[in-house]
């Protein structure tokens, strides 16, 4: 098999606050292949956003710091790169699309100037060429009448259009990897669907790999090849999207699935929506064992004491990894039997 595009090894990130060190990412490891779409799911504070920001040196330091790990992107360790070299990766080989396009675009710069910026920095285009390319990119993200809108400011665009502009910026230099951080969270449902459809289309056209970060498992289902569930700065489960949805092995994944309204109208559709009780652990004092144990009805004594490793789930599809001491399918079967 070819070398993966991205190889994250034991990444650890901490934020120093007045109340103590907050351990935001606690040893995250995974690989991403060329052209693969990875959906990263978790709630606030799960480390899903922080870990990608940290990869590219985008967390504020201080208070943030990277405590360890490697992030190999096309064979180079991003964490070991000097800032200057890392800048060449950011916006060039790796494009970013952020949440909330209202605040993520500079209110004082025209859209053309903002799209042209990475083109001029990474591709060395002159003003005129960059502008022409910016126009093409606005076309690409389906903004009508692109030429007339180049010199407008972000506040003159609608929310969905601003998100399209963000995507144009992320794609400007034809990145090998596009990272979308809650890219549709701030949008209403129909616009959200449009944006997802656009990204899928662009992926077919351009063939880049995507890391799609979201708290919404429903969005992940529509877009990803692989799903990765994060909690308290760790990966609890990871695998092919169908397998995860059909055969979840971690109680947290199951909880997320059960809190999802099922629109297919199948057997599960009649089930009541469930919420996961409790709240995430205090990350200043992470528990010694499985961080989800306190909220987990299936937790065993071992869960409280010792963190389970992320290993291939028995009987599941290859590449379906889980971190759990308990055997979820067996426990569910017991429940049904009762």
């Amino acid at each position: 098999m070819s070398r993966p595009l991205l190889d994250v090894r034991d990444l650890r990130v901490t934020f120093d606050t007045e109340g103590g060190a907050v351990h935001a990412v606690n040893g995250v490891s995974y690989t991403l292949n060329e052209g693969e779409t990875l959906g990263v799911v978790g709630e606030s504070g799960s480390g899903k956003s922080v870990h990608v920001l940290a990869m590219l040196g985008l967390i504020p330091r201080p208070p943030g710091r990277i405590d360890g790990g490697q992030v190999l992107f096309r064979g180079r360790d991003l964490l070991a790169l000097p800032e200057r070299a890392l800048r060449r990766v950011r916006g060039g080989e790796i494009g970013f699309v952020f949440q909330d396009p209202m605040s993520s675009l500079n209110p004082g710069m025209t859209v053309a100037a903002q799209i042209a910026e990475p083109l001029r920095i990474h591709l060395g285009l002159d003003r005129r060429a960059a502008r022409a390319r910016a126009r093409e990119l606005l076309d690409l993200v389906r903004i009508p009448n692109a030429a007339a809108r180049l010199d407008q400011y972000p506040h003159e665009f609608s929310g969905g259009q601003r998100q399209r502009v963000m995507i144009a910026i992320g794609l400007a230099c034809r990145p090998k990897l596009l990272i979308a951080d809650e890219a549709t969270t701030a949008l209403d449902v129909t616009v959200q669907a449009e944006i997802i459809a656009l990204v899928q289309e662009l992926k077919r056209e351009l063939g880049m790999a995507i890391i799609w970060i979201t708290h919404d498992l429903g969005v992940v289902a529509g877009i990803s090849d692989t799903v990765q569930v994060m909690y308290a700065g760790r990966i609890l489960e990871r695998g092919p999207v169908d397998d995860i949805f059909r055969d979840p092995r971690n109680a947290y994944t199951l909880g997320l699935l059960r809190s999802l309204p099922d629109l297919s109208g199948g057997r599960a559709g009649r089930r009541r929506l469930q919420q996961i009780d409790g709240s995430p652990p205090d990350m200043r004092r992470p528990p010694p064992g499985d961080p989800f144990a306190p909220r987990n009805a299936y937790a065993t004594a071992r869960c409280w004491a010792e963190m389970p490793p992320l290993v291939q789930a028995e009987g599941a599809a290859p590449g379906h990894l889980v971190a759990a001491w308990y055997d979820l399918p067996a426990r569910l079967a017991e429940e049904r039997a009762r």
Partner: protein
Amino acid sequence: MSTGTPLTESAGVAAPAGNLAILQEPGSLAAFWRRLAARRSALIGLAIVVALVATAALADLVAPYDPTATDWGAVRAAPSLAHPFGGDEVGRDVLSRIIYGARASLGAGLVSVGLAVALGLPIGLVAGYAGGWIDAAIMRLTDALLAIPFLILAIALAAFLGPSLTNAMLAIGLSATSTFVRLTRAQVRAVAAEEFVEAARSVGNPPWRIALVHILPNIVPAILVQATLTIAAAIIAEASLSFLGLGQQPPEPSWGAMLNVAKNFMDQAPWMAIWPGLSIFLAVLAFNLLGDGLRDALDPRQRT
């Protein structure tokens, strides 16, 4: 806030308050003192303030000489064992005058700001709580007062009232009042929109009770911070007025008035200028440090 961005992303699955919320309980008095105590500069400020207040209060015991007693042998005398800070133009002991001068400076700072709060707080409370035309009228009036720069208003007031320390305090206090009216009003409006005030209203509390029992305690911290910083400004203002001859009248000692005389003897007796100036600087610095520390301790989110 910059540091919080990656940790407080929007709505999660169960939308928990986030781990940082624990650090931001603004209501807790114990947490407030802890945060204040953690700021060394604020403690230094507090220590200097306490030392200055003690000096002013115990001036009779601490000062080596009568601050107005002249000694022809000590006219513009350089600092010595007998007169550690030297002598002034008529042979008074500079150290004793500095010590007694603390009374004028601190007194002016505290009295004028006390006056400004005593006037500004009720007016601001009324404006913020009553709203409507009363509020509009009060706001226009403070707008107009704020259009006249603080010290210029104080000088004009002092000029018309006549030069004396009491009038200087009055002038400074009146000039600072509009700041407290504005602050109180803004705070009241912010607090009045909170749910617990709504709740208090819904169970039939009369307006005055809501204002005094439910709103006032919540705006005290902000007023305290502003008052501390305004004392710093008031001390400079008193020194300025006295420097111009509009404050403390000779021969009573005041740091500003001492500087006024000292500037005529700069080449022969520089110590006459150095000590009073240093005292003003120290007093103002102390209140600024304390005020900054209080503000940071009260609102850790604004702290950067």
